[in-house]
């Protein structure tokens, strides 16, 4: 538990998380170094807003772009990995398997920052098993779910995250099934960084992304990202108007990176600070809720209530550092396995002789 309330001298807290980037970041790289190819998604797609937030978050956090591995499955969300960080290797895999592919990739090269971009179909339906097992293992990865409640690339079928009562565009079909809540499931599986946000709230998304980058294990961010073509109508709970009208932030979020020397003050009793493994801080300024993101049962309770009341709560829902990341559990050598020299991956002939003696 690294949550603490920081004493205050009563001065007004600056806008946290809005660390004013200059033209270049701490690596002397400009924002454009973090950009990718042109998006081919529909104009106004929530996913593009998230892509912009990713670019901004990586830029502001100051990660070498080539130190990143970008992975995705299949779907509109999966395309977006081509739209940021051109200097990073990217892998657009098969539907639902990105979580497992990323686990393999991370073990091959634990030095790379892994980001996986998924959708609600990719994560909550075809890939649910692989997703949950990735979370359970605590594979170090920033795992984004661009959640629009529908299958965009195959023209608008309901996904498993569609809220009960959602209406399908045109046909009037109403979803009667219980939606899968990827945040609640992640908490159940022991995820140490669980957040929910809205693509129309870039400030919050950027802060959550940076917090996720500083978190050592699996970080799941479920971002409602309206599908402007198939799911942005009146009967949808994943539309812009619905999300705008119902968004209820748990707290005002800020992020102070470990390299930032600015130390800020907070109103006592109103701000919770979460310290991340690399020394960065997430600040959670209380709004209407009396909420502690380190309380697992409270987090699950809140998500449950929100689901029943069809509330759209956003923010850092749950935080916990107690499970070691997967690569640490495995006690791997610090260097990437991918580039170990031959001498370190083939024992000498004497070892073979010794083993074969046992079979004589």
């Amino acid at each position, binding site marked *: 538990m690294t949550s603490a309330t920081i004493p205050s001298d009563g001065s007004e807290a600056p806008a946290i998380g809005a660390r004013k980037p200059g033209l270049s970041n701490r690596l002397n790289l400009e924002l454009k170094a973090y950009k990718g190819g042109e998006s081919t998604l529909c104009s106004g797609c929530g996913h593009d807003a998230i892509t912009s937030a990713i670019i901004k978050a990586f830029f502001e956090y100051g990660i070498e772009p080539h130190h990143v591995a970008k992975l995705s499955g299949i779907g509109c969300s999966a395309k977006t990995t081509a739209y940021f960080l051109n200097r990073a290797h*990217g892998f657009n895999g098969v539907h639902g*398997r990105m979580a497992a592919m990323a686990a*393999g990739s991370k073990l091959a*090269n634990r030095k790379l920052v892994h980001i996986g971009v998924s959708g609600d179909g990719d994560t909550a339906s075809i890939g649910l098993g*692989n997703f949950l097992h990735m979370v359970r293992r605590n594979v170090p990865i920033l795992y984004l779910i661009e959640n629009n409640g529908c299958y965009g690339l195959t023209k608008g079928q309901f996904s498993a995250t569609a809220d009960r009562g959602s209406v399908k565009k045109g046909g009037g079909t109403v979803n009667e099934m219980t939606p899968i809540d990827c945040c609640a499931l992640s908490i159940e599986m022991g995820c140490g960084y669980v957040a929910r946000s809205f693509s129309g709230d870039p400030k919050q998304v950027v802060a959550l992304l940076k917090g996720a980058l500083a978190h050592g294990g699996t970080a799941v961010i479920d971002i409602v990202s309206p599908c402007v073509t198939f799911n942005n109508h009146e009967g949808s709970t994943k539309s812009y108007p619905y999300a705008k009208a119902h968004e209820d932030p748990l707290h005002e979020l800020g992020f102070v990176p470990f390299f930032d020397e600015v130390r800020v003050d907070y109103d006592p009793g109103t701000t919770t600070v979460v310290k991340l493994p690399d020394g960065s801080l997430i600040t959670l300024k209380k709004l209407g809720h009396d909420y502690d993101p380190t309380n697992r049962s409270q987090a699950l309770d809140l998500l449950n209530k929100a689901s029943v009341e069809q509330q759209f709560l956003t923010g850092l829902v749950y935080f916990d550092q107690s499970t070691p990341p997967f690569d640490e559990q495995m*006690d791997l050598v610090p260097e990437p396995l991918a580039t170990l020299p031959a001498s370190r991956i*083939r024992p000498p002939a004497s070892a073979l*002789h010794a083993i074969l003696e046992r079979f004589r």
Partner: protein
Amino acid sequence: MSIAMEPRAHRGNLGVEASATPVVNDLVVTVATSNGTGSQSANLILMRAIFGMGIPVSGKNMFPSNIQGLPTWFTVRANASGWTARRREADVLVAMNVESIAEDIASLRSGAILVITKSLASYVTRGDLKVFVVPFDELVVPVCKDARLRKMVVNILYVGVLAHLLDIEMDEVKNAIGRQFAKKGSAAKLNTDAAIAGFDWAREHLPRQNEFTLRRANLTEGKIIIEGNQAAGLGLMFGGITVLAWYPITPSSSLCEACIDYLEEYRADPETGKATYAVIQAEDELASIAMVIGAGWAGARAATATAGPGISLMSEIAGLAYFAEIPAVIIDVQRMGPSTGLPTRTCQGDIWKAYQLSHGDCKHPMLLPGNMAECFEFAAESLNLAERLQTLVFVMTDLDLGMNSWMSAPFEPLTKPIDRGKVLSDEDLARVGEFARYKDIDGDGICYRTLPGSSHPNSAYFTRGTGHTEAATYSEKPADWAGNLDRLTRKFDTARKLVPKPVIKMTAGATVAIIAFGSSDPAVEEARAILAAEEGTKTDYLRLRGLPIGSEVFEFINTHQIVYVVEQNRDAQCASILRLECPDRAPLIRSILHYNGLPIDARSIVEGILAGEKRSKPS
């Protein structure tokens, strides 16, 4: 009962007719017990003791998909000529299991020796067997005070009885027990006492038999006994595997478990003790192969092992590995069909499926080990080939190779260095400047790749399964797609030269040509000897060790009239591939097929060839 113990037709030159002089060092003992009674230990001790006497031996376990209580048979074949394939008929049956007793007795050939536990003696209604009734349940009581252990200790008693009946040296039995229970001193003593009790009782109470005897020889010196799964696990470890992802499935689990044991012992960093490998027990085979290609993409030497059902689940990602050109290895320990379809019975039934696994014009190189040394070598080499060819490589073994005990010369240390294939480092890129992931610079269809994490500005590329240009940008243009497919064909042709070459044995005056692969080899060699001795028929033999076929295989097929392809599946899967490769010769490629779940035997091959030859002769 699923063991076909048909009456012996003839022993040919491999033995002598039953007479006053016993057959020396040539017999098959089958033990019928129920699984979960510890009989496996007793059977391995029996086999090891014969091996210790210098007599070539093999052990084949025919076990149910069950942990306790169903019939299981273990067959030990001792043969001075070194024939260790399964033989159809047993010479000696040890009958311990009431569940299978009626069929066990019915299946025996006339004159066979039956060692039967007293409680089952009333089942013997045939008069043409040499029956030895042993009161095992009574003998075990004074030997083993703990009633709970008796059902296990009783098995060692039959080893002692057989030692007396078949002249197995008790010192070798004791050695084998010491070896089996090396880490459990008290168990070693208990079992040794039981073996001696069985031996002493038999010496005192049973008449001699003069049909078979085992005599010390020097034919196993320096040899090892090992299972193919252990050999392949060892091969992966020495081959430099860095990521192993797997999901438990019979009969491949013991391969991964053996590999893990060797990794833990030999692949910890000598200075820090930290692992130079990662092992993940995945949630299913979809995940295990996804982890493997994720790891392969990022530069690991990654592999998984599975069986047919796992192969089916891996199908989609196999295609991604093919088109995105990611190194990966799947070792397929083949077994019979899906669901409860004989998961503990052997076959070579995945050849066709694995060769073209996935959708949209896929084909994969395949290594076909036929013995223990090749299980070791090919598992190691598969990691090299996968990186050299930047593709998915299969190693096809089967349950017979993987889980049965095979005699082998000790493996030679690997001579081929670790090959990382065409990987461009930052320094390489600084030198050559340009980089296009899917451009065929060398004309062999294999392109250069960079690894994630490379810092050169031209290094990064975006990996996709579907259409891409040479520069790895997205494309749906027909010319790009067709061009890519054609280059992949060139790469596959390169693979023809890189997979292990066949082993070809030509005989002067041969009139019959045989092609076989994998676990069929011992039965084929024995069949060739029988054909030569009994029929005067000489044979040429090509043992296929890899797909796609190379020039040697084309030449063998083109220069022989009729070629018999021996394989352990119903649909002539390998022969079908050969017919497609050699369409002009297709009518001359015939099949000898064995698919009853048991390892193939020599007699089936002899009969197949004789039937085929009869068909060929003008009437």
